[in-house]
């Protein structure tokens, strides 16, 4: 028993993954509302139980108080946004809006300052009361009140108001021209709460709100039982607007455990219909999925990219308070040749082949911004920093005057190329570390590996954290935002450099600073032409790759490599929205 007390650490290791869920992207061509067109007409409630397994358990069913994908997904069965994001990052009218507003249909103002949403008529909450535009307004009031400290607050930035024009029309007004006009209202960041239920949960009272455990929604299912951190049981919602849906009478959403046994439950025993984020070594997952008659693996690509960050500040502990501050300079990574050599000695295709199963869980990429497709740069593949070439890397360092010492480590002016390379505790990541270390050492770097539990890695309070970045190279996955502006800006703009002054809360962990890059970001904030926006995003991406601020490695299957029963129909994953975005269409 004592030893199990100590083994807490293992469990942490199991929970150690990051891949943040889907993100969204300005929709360019909204698709017609195909709600109900996906599957052949099925009988409501004809199916029995649908079993969903997540290895992280939902702890709260209010997406605005969510702490992770698990909460967003578990609440999506109940709560719906106005519209969802489809596969290509375009809005899809399968939610509370009857159609997608566009400039063409007059729903979006020509100057991009307001969006008029037409709501479906006759929609009822699961308690039988009617849904109106007032609910949309109330939901906005709840979500965008600073005192409520909602985790989805980011979509409120720049929103001036949400008002009800009539019971079936809601108007979102932005304070300035907003090229990304679907920011509020679409996707997993904007589900609509019931006004009546949340009347007493506004502002500071939001932190202690019983409705968060049993929300009333308009979605296809309603909560029967919720055990936080364990299981949600749902019943079908008799008041759901589509009389033929949903197909399943009940849904069990079970959380906990580890990815490997979840994969077994999906592929080998079929105990589970839908298994989330089966992050297991590709050499294990591949045969498991290939040999399975029961289930298949979902693969869709979004903007999740596993990347290496190069530190531009000096992480030397002897600097004391100045350690890793944006105004310090890295002893050798401030030399572009060293960064370039590191990039050229990085064998991303070996990582992709050995660990990600070449397309099973991810593919090699040299872009930080991989999606949506029009923003995926085609320029980087031909760059020398994107090609694995140890000779070129050696030459780069030789030419720059970094000479190999007797210990095989290169040095110049007494500075040795000694790297601490940190990432989270995760078996795939530790194997990646091993692969990269072997090559980097061949060109004269000395590499010390470090792995930190995810909970410590992703916090601004730990010196071992990604935010402090008190190491030389670090690796994790992150994904793009609805509009790449905020993603690109927070990742690498000068203003976003993290440090003591902002309590390590900012997103530019590298402390990279490049005026050209910042100029592009500023243009992105105002540019309204789609083609030009794509061009700007590509330029920004290319700068980061060429300048070796980041070394992108793998574009990962997104939202996550999920396993789904072959009998289950209608599952059509979108990397930009919750995995459950179209659960009303699922059937067997």
């Amino acid at each position: 028993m004592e030893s199990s007390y100590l083994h807490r650490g293992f469990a942490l290791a199991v929970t150690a993954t990051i891949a943040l869920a889907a993100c969204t992207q300005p929709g360019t061509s909204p698709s017609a509302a195909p709600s109900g067109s996906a599957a052949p007409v099925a009988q409501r409630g004809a199916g029995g139980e649908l079993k969903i397994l997540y290895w992280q358990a939902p702890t709260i069913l209010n997406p605005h108080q969510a702490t992770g994908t698990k909460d967003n997904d578990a609440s999506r069965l109940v709560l719906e946004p106005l519209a969802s994001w489809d596969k290509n990052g375009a809005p899809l009218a399968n939610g509370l809006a009857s159609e997608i507003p566009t400039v063409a249909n007059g729903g979006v103002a020509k100057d991009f300052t307001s969006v008029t949403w037409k709501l479906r008529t006759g929609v009822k909450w699961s308690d039988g009361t009617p849904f109106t535009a007032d609910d949309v307004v109330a939901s906005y009031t709840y979500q965008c009140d600073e005192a409520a400290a909602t985790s989805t607050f980011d979509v409120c930035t720049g929103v001036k108001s949400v008002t009800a024009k009539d019971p079936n029309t809601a108007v979102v007004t932005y304070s300035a021209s907003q090229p990304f006009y679907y920011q509020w209202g679409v996707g997993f960041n904007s589900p609509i709460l019931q006004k009546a239920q949340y009347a007493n949960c506004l502002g500071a009272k939001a932190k202690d709100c019983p409705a968060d455990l049993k929300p009333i929604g308009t979605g296809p299912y309603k909560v029967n039982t919720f055990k936080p951190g364990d299981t949600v049981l749902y019943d079908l919602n008799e008041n759901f607007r589509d009389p033929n849906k949903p197909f399943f009478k009940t849904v069990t959403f079970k959380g906990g455990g580890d990815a490997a046994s979840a994969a077994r439950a999906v592929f080998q025993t079929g105990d589970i219909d839908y298994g989330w984020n089966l992050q297991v070594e590709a050499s294990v997952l591949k045969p498991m999925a290939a040999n399975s008659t029961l289930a298949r693996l979902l693969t869709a690509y979004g903007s999740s990219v596993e990347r290496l960050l190069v530190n531009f500040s000096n992480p030397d502990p002897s600097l004391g308070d100045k350690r890793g501050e944006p105004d310090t300079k890295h002893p050798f990574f401030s030399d572009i040749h060293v960064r370039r050599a590191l990039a050229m000695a990085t064998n991303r295709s070996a990582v992709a082949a050995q660990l990600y199963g070449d397309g099973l869980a991810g593919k090699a990429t040299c872009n930080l911004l991989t999606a949506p497709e029009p923003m995926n740069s085609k320029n980087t593949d031909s760059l020398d920093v994107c090609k694995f070439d140890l000779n070129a890397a050696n030459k780069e360092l030789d030419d720059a005057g970094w000479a190999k010492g007797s210990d095989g480590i290169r040095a110049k002016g007494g500075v040795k190329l000694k790297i601490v390379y940190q990432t989270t505790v995760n078996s795939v990541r530790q194997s990646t570390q091993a692969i990269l270390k072997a090559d980097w050492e061949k060109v004269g770097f000395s590499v010390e590996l470090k792995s930190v539990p995810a909970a410590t890695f992703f916090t601004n309070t730990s010196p071992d954290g990604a935010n402090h970045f008190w190491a030389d190279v670090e690796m994790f996955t992150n994904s793009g935002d609805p509009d790449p502006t905020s993603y690109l800006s927070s990742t690498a703009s000068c203003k976003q450099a993290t440090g003591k002054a902002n309590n390590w809360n900012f997103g530019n962990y590298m402390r990279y600073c490049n005026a050209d890059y910042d100029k592009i970001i500023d243009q992105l904030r105002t540019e309204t032409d789609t083609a030009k926006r794509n061009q700007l995003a590509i330029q920004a991406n290319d700068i980061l790759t060429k300048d070796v601020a980041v070394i992108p490695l793998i574009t990962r299957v997104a939202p996550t490599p999920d396993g789904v029963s072959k009998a289950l129909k209608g599952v059509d994953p979108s990397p930009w929205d919750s995995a459950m975005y179209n659960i009303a269409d699922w059937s067997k």
Partner: protein
Amino acid sequence: MATTQARFTTAPVKADMLRPPRSLWTDAWYQFRRHKLAMAGLGVLSFLILATLIGPYLWQVRMDALDYSIALEGPSPDHPFGTDNLGRDLFARALWGGRVSIAVGLSAVLIAITLGTLIGALAGYFNRLDNPLMRLTDLFLSLPILPLLLIVIYLFRDPLRAAFGPEVGIFIMIVTVIGVLEWMPVARLVRAQFLSLKQKEFVEAARAIGDPDFAIIWRHILPNTLSPVLVAATIGVGGAILTESTLSFLGLGFPPDVPTWGRLLYDAQNFIEIATYWVFFPGFLIFLTVLSINYIGDGLRDALDPRKT
């Protein structure tokens, strides 16, 4: 050791008669030697230690050489323990990692039982110390280990690394952490034995002839508390070897590329069906180590027990 053994074995019959008067320790060694399982345990353990110490110099394959073309191959003459998913030689890795694992297992347990025995003996023998020491034990038993470990890393990793270098510094930290977190059961066990034994006649007798407290504790009571301590120690070695790898998941242990036995086991877990050998060898090595220590403990207890002949 080898020479002693040789001398005894060449003249087994005469040994008893020709032997000079025996001291406690030579006597114990003599007894120990007659315990076959204990000797076997000692042999296996010595072999493992030797193999991990000099093996990496004899076995020329590098433990971190990657070769994807031979990934996940079973045992063969070239790779007696097979290869892992990156084609690294598991035999070389097991030899290399075994050093660390055995050293951590033995030292951590030594710290834990020394500390535990000391505190247990003091608490059990001196009434005044009983309450404060046992409440301290309660406190340690109640500590939330994981957050505590995170604090330890936060506070001590960099200073220790700076003082002793990355490897020794981390070794000291791991061994201390395991030792400091595992002494409490030993202390409770030893104290309970002391409470019972200090009332016994032989202790009364020792006290009556004026033996000082220290001598009574050391010479009379402590040897009689040995058996639960030895059990705790043998169980503890396996635990410590596994705990070391757990700690490395907290960022407290060795860097992720040091292939300790525990680490090899964890790395292998998802491959258990595809590559059973990967799981088998490190598990078997830990098993051998722990089992041989157990039999050494068995023999030691018998050898130190004056009632046995």
